[in-house]
């Protein structure tokens, strides 16, 4: 009985948790509710993923209004994959948040943080679950508005300026998305994604479609920090509270990439025009620029958190590169990297939060010799760093392996060499942390020396362990991803 309603519960549980927290106004209870909601969401998403693997795409008619008239939640393998990623990161970040948020926010603001987190979480889950273009916009804005505030909660005043910048660019992005959807709506008269895809097959004139695809690509590109639309990201990630950075970095850009893949393959794929070819050519150039330039920029950062933020833009480049290669291996790499990079960056930013708590700063200059004081945290960063580089035996390697394979299948040796070479830049910037933390003499007076509390280390290490675990046991991050890719490719071929 309840199994039939998992798609709506996935969204409604965290959505109700938010207002409940605001009504109760108690920080301990707020933390409890947010944690329970995240764990419930994780259980639901795993249930959905099993259901999808078992019996195929789930279609759920909201309020029993049959699609395409009512709003439909439509979860295929790709959607379920993204739901699991988002709820997994949420479920790990919430136990961590209690200590971290208590240290970084004023006492009276704590419960508001949890309420906003729940709304952000709701929006991201809703984006992955819905099968309606306009409903997707609403969820996108729910998550974005919550994210702007979460970033503005940062302790330093730069957090406010970065949140404002993100608000401007994010809203322009969302509006561009609505323009694109509006054009599609004018062409087809429907907002249901599956229905829209079927009707676009009969469109005679490609021009409005080109305009719609362009608007949607640029709009969603702003949200997912596609180079050169990533200007908001480094500041936002650097100045946001630690747990916010970890959660947003691991999920928000990934869900936006999911939207881009959903539109480019499921909506524009079946049209009789070669739209995707040009789309992929553009994406290829943009992603190569992102990988090379952002990896180099990351290398020369003085702040470790900022370095990882730039690395995120480069990693988004790898995902888009996989999408642009447009063969099965490439898409598998892209979808798999959504998850692999999500857990890797999540782990790194959680551990950086632990450094910030004890050392009071994330500047590399202030972290010298930190490994002697915080061996567990530092070692975790090294392991997650290996996954970021893509060393065999880590989740990151899986992506690189499929990316190189995809490049070779296209006969492009240059591209394969580029992927390997840019991984070496990642070695260089991860090494900068190792050099500072392990090889330099400890700073004489750390504000609060000692290892981070267990309540932060355990969640962070869970994600570090996941980086290793998913490097060996690939039935989810490759097997399930391959199933999702198969469905996508089938839609294009139709």
């Amino acid at each position: 009985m309840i199994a039939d309603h998992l798609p709506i519960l996935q969204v409604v549980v965290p959505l109700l948790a938010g207002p409940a927290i605001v009504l109760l106004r108690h920080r301990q209870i707020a933390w409890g509710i947010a944690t329970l909601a995240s764990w419930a969401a994780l259980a639901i998403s795993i249930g959905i993923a099993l259901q999808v693997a078992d019996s195929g795409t789930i279609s759920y008619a909201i309020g029993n209004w049959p699609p395409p008239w009512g709003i439909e939640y439509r979860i295929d393998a790709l959607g379920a994959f993204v739901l699991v990623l988002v709820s997994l990161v949420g479920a790990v970040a919430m136990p961590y948040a209690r200590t971290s948020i208590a240290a970084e926010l004023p006492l009276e603001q704590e419960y508001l943080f949890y309420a906003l987190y729940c709304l952000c979480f709701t929006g991201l889950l809703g984006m992955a679950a819905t099968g309606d273009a306009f409903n997707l916009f609403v969820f996108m804005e729910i998550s974005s508005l919550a994210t702007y505030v979460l970033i503005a909660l940062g302790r330093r005043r730069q957090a406010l300026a970065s949140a404002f910048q993100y608000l401007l660019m994010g809203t322009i992005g969302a509006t561009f998305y609505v323009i694109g959807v509006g054009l599609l709506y004018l062409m087809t008269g429907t907002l249901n994604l599956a229905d829209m895809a079927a009707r676009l097959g009969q469109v005679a004139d490609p021009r409005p479609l080109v305009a719609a695809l362009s608007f949607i690509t640029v709009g969603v590109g702003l949200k997912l920090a596609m180079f050169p639309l990533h200007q908001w990201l480094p500041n936002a990630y650097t100045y946001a509270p630690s747990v916010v950075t970890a959660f947003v970095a691991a999920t928000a850009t990934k869900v936006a990439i999911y939207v881009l893949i959903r539109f480019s393959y499921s909506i524009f794929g079946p049209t009789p025009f070669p739209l995707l070819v040009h789309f992929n050519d553009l994406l290829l150039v943009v992603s190569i620029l992102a990988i090379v330039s952002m990896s180099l920029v990351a290398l020369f950062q003085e702040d470790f958190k900022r370095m990882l933020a730039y690395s995120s833009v480069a990693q988004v480049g790898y995902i888009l590169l996989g999408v642009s290669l447009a063969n099965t291996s490439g898409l598998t790499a892209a979808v798999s990297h959504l998850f692999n990079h999500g857990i890797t960056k999540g782990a790194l930013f959680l551990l950086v939060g632990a450094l910030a708590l004890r050392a009071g700063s994330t500047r590399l200059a202030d972290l010298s010799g930190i490994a002697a004081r915080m061996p567990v945290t530092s070692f975790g960063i090294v392991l997650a760093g290996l996954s970021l580089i893509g060393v065999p035996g880590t989740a990151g390697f899986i992506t690189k392996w499929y990316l190189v394979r995809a490049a070779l299948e296209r006969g492009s040796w240059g591209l394969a060499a580029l992927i390997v070479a840019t991984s070496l830049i990642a070695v260089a910037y991860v090494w900068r942390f190792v050099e500072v933390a392990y090889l330099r003499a400890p700073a004489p007076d750390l504000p609060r020396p000692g290892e981070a509390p267990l309540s932060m280390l355990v969640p962070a290490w869970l994600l570090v362990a996941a980086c290793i675990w998913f490097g060996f046991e690939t039935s989810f991050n490759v097997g399930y991803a391959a199933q999702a890719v198969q469905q996508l490719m089938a839609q294009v071929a139709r």
Partner: protein
Amino acid sequence: MKLATHYAYAVTIFLMVAGMFIIIARGNLIKKLIGLGIFQTSVYLLYVAPGKLIGGTAPIIDPAFEVYSNPLPHVLILTAIVVGVATLALGLAIAVRIREAYGTIEEDEILAAELAAVRES
């Protein structure tokens, strides 16, 4: 001729570009938010204008009428307006906090304050 029949589109595009221009060209945070509002408004028009059919009536089934206007775009845009209001409110709230923290809402002065802070450290 084209302009007369595509009047709504012409206005849409003008508002869209004017809004974008204000966001990019003005350094005052409030003016930027006004630009953002104009930019979003253009989309409201893009959706609502095609919903109206000349000679169409309200969408209530009646044997006397054959042409109906589409009510869905209006409903969608009602939602979009709510989102726009929330964004504007949040933007203004952050602008107030920026004024408290920096003592200014001019973008160049905020950047200058940041640069000065970096030099000092």
